[in-house]
């Protein structure tokens, strides 16, 4: 459970929101020309990052507005909230020292240490 600061309504519990999945996936401009692999890529393939992830959220039991969220999926910490249509922000997050390791806080598991990595 975490708190999300809705741009319209302020801080509310995550249970009021629905996650619309990865943000910045662009609908293909030329659907008839797409190969099967390109369709699969658009429809099914997801980044599923451990660490920084950019997502769309909807305040479903509130103002019902969509917005974008930059979130650390290792800790569930929300880094930045920005409007639909805005470009992906450049943000810094604390990442686990090893790719599958645990962060220092925010995980159900313990960890030893962390380092800071920058989003490219």
């Amino acid at each position: 459970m975490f708190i999300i600061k809705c741009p319209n309504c302020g801080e509310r519990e995550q249970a009021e929101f629905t996650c619309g999945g990865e943000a910045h996936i662009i609908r293909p401009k030329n659907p008839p020309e797409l190969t099967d692999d390109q369709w699969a890529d658009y429809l099914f393939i997801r980044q599923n990052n451990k660490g920084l992830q950019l997502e769309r959220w909807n305040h479903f039991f509130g103002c019902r507005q969509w917005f974008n969220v930059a979130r650390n999926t290792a800790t569930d910490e929300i880094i930045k909230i920005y409007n639909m249509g805005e470009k992906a922000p450049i943000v810094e997050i604390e990442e686990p020292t090893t790719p599958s390791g645990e962060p220092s806080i925010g995980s159900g598991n313990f960890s030893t240490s962390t380092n800071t990595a920058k989003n490219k």
Partner: protein
Amino acid sequence: MHKKPKKYSVFSLVKNALSYHENWKPAWRSPRPKKEYDAIIIGGGGHGLTTAYYLAKNHGLTNIAVLEKGWIGGGNTGRNTTIIRSNYLWDQSAALYEHALKLWEGMSQELNYNVMFSQRGVMNVAHNLQDVRELKRRWHANRLNDIDCEWLNTEQVKEFCPVINTSQNIRYPVLGATLQRRAGTARHDAVAWGYARGADAMGVDIIQNCEVTGFDIKNGNITGVETTKGRINSKKIGVVAAGHTSVLANMVGIKLPLESRPLQALVSEPVKPVIDTVVMSNTIHAYVSQSDKGELVIGAGTDGYTSYSQRGGFNIVEDTIMAIVELFPLFSRLKMLRHWGGIVDICPDASPIISKTHITGLFINCGWGTGGFKATPGSGWVFAHTIANNQPHTLNAPFNINRFSSGELVDEHGAAAVAH
């Protein structure tokens, strides 16, 4: 070389009882990794350990290592609600899970390790007309696939499970249920430990606290892995990392159709035997059984967002408990003892991927989502076949990674059962 572990029997129990159980030998070794193996399995959960076990047993490949970043069985193998069944709708899934169920039936004997497999039956409850139609459709599909399944009306449900509330005046009344009598539960830790012991006895190295941090690929062939315990070479590598599969796949540039989400479960304080079967409900999203210790084991649905934090929202727990209390009013005063989350990797069609990849020698087994425990032995069996022969077993051929391009999805969403 190590000595083979002694067979467990009533005599070994008596003998060790006389020495106050202080002289039991470890069930598996903790070796240092060698420089090179014939095959490496990444992930020491149930699926990884069974893969290693069947590679050794069925395919004679014993120079192999299982790499586990934590401790074996510490991931989803130790975090599930231990339900085992094979009543899936589609032929491909039914064949795969039924094969697994048959392996469960002989597992304790084969491993000489009591996995406490209990065929207490699994009941899938219907609460509205649509549920009744769906479940009856699945019942008939199961019969056509030679999988045992029965339809119970409301009275029969009450007779089979007397503690369930069959009042027709509740929000989600019980209109009937399917029952698979061969389905049931098992002790999840024992499954990991039993297969680890069995694989170790055949020479498999189980290496814990060893996280894979990179892969080495030369000309499209896999040649080894970088780990927190150094580099290990191998020409065949199987990735069985559940929620962290995407993290590993990203290292070699393979994009997967997975989303990793928290799936929560909880257990109550122990009570005397009160429910001798497994009750699942798709509509109200809850499932419950009673462990041999007496705790009620309760499962919830997934949280609706990507997370690797191994914890979820309390609203999911609350929804689940509300559903359980309506179905079983007598559970309402039980205290909950423990609550946890696991990270499950979910495919768009809610079916697993057990497949070769475009990199020669790299194989993946993932996407089991919320229902991987029941498939543990079957998954290892077919994945071992895929790795040993470099081509899929007939059972896992439909579960290849190319199905997302070809469109031949095995769509078990809603068709399978709870949380699918």
